[in-house]
């Protein structure tokens, strides 16, 4: 196997962090929908909290993505 092939496998493994982030975001959104269904008047506050939580959850996926990009663009040369 060539070096670039190994790098590609490593980058692919790095973006697997997206699976966890997707799970977490799905759970958070589901809970937010439940909360709004129970208390529709708290819509605004729940929305703001959800956005912040989603961004924090999403960052794990982003770290994986950045790792993959760094692997591809810097290790291949």
């Amino acid at each position, binding site marked *: 196997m060539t070096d670039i092939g190994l790098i590609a496998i490593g980058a692919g493994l790095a973006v697997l962090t997206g699976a966890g982030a997707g799970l977490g975001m799905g759970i958070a959104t589901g809970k937010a929908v439940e909360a709004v269904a129970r208390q529709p008047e708290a819509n605004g506050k729940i929305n703001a909290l959800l*956005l*912040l939580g989603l*961004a924090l959850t999403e*960052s794990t996926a*982003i770290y994986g993505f*950045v790792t993959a990009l760094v692997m591809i*663009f810097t290790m291949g040369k």
Partner: protein
Amino acid sequence: MQFIMPSAGKWIAIALSLLLGVGALVLRARISQLEHTDEGYRAAKKKRNLLMMAGVLLLWLCSGLILSSFGLGEREFTVSISPARMDLFGLSVSSTVFVSWIVIAALTLITAIIRIFVIPRFQETPRGIQLVLETAVGAINDLAKEKYGQKNEGLASYFFALAALFIGSAIVELFGVRPPTTDLSMTFTYALVTFVLINVYGIRKKGVTGRLQSFVKPNAIIAPFKLLSDLAIPISLACRLFGNMLGGMVVIELVYYALGAYSVGMPAVLGLYFNAFHPLIQFFIFINLSLTFIGEAVEEQMA
């Protein structure tokens, strides 16, 4: 200069997309419309929409055929993690830095124009541009007040300027230029400013000993972890913004690359999400998180 300018094919695609939109609107106006109360109004409306869609599709196919016949469709996929460098009077400057200078110059001009021509004409009841300005300033003031605990004009104005710069760089992306936010050096700079602000406000509020004591607050064992998580704040802020912006740019570049000569109008649909909505959310998150961390540093902890 050729590094920051998009290729000729991309420029033509962007211009043709605009033409396509105008053409669709003209087409819509040309098709005769029945009165709202007339018989068969719904059928006529449906027919009109169908005709418009067919017209847009035809225009899109024509533009693709024309572009590919001139050989403007071939693009190479060249996305790099670090932006291209350019020569500016003997200085090697990264192209995104140059773009951000342009954005800053434009923002300075706009603020000067607003200060000279708009602000003296403010009235008691806000209208038009005054209403927009007052709403924006009020929103960022409220956010800073909510996170910081009390009114803070300095923080609010800094984050307002940051938001303006970020939005300016998002608008630049719509012209096909690589935006400064896809450069790790820019996002890391502003994350470092946030880190400095956290410590400055924390020390100003509690003193040096108080700030150091906050690291050993519940227990002394936890101190290294708290120190580490504080040091990770700028890295995580910078990487989050950078990764999101670069990811959006890579997706859009891939769409341009895959569609080739037919990339007229189509990327605009995706661009609405990746170039308009997504950056705005991420900028809001960046500012919100920065303010949250600053508020955390200054808040009085329960003993």
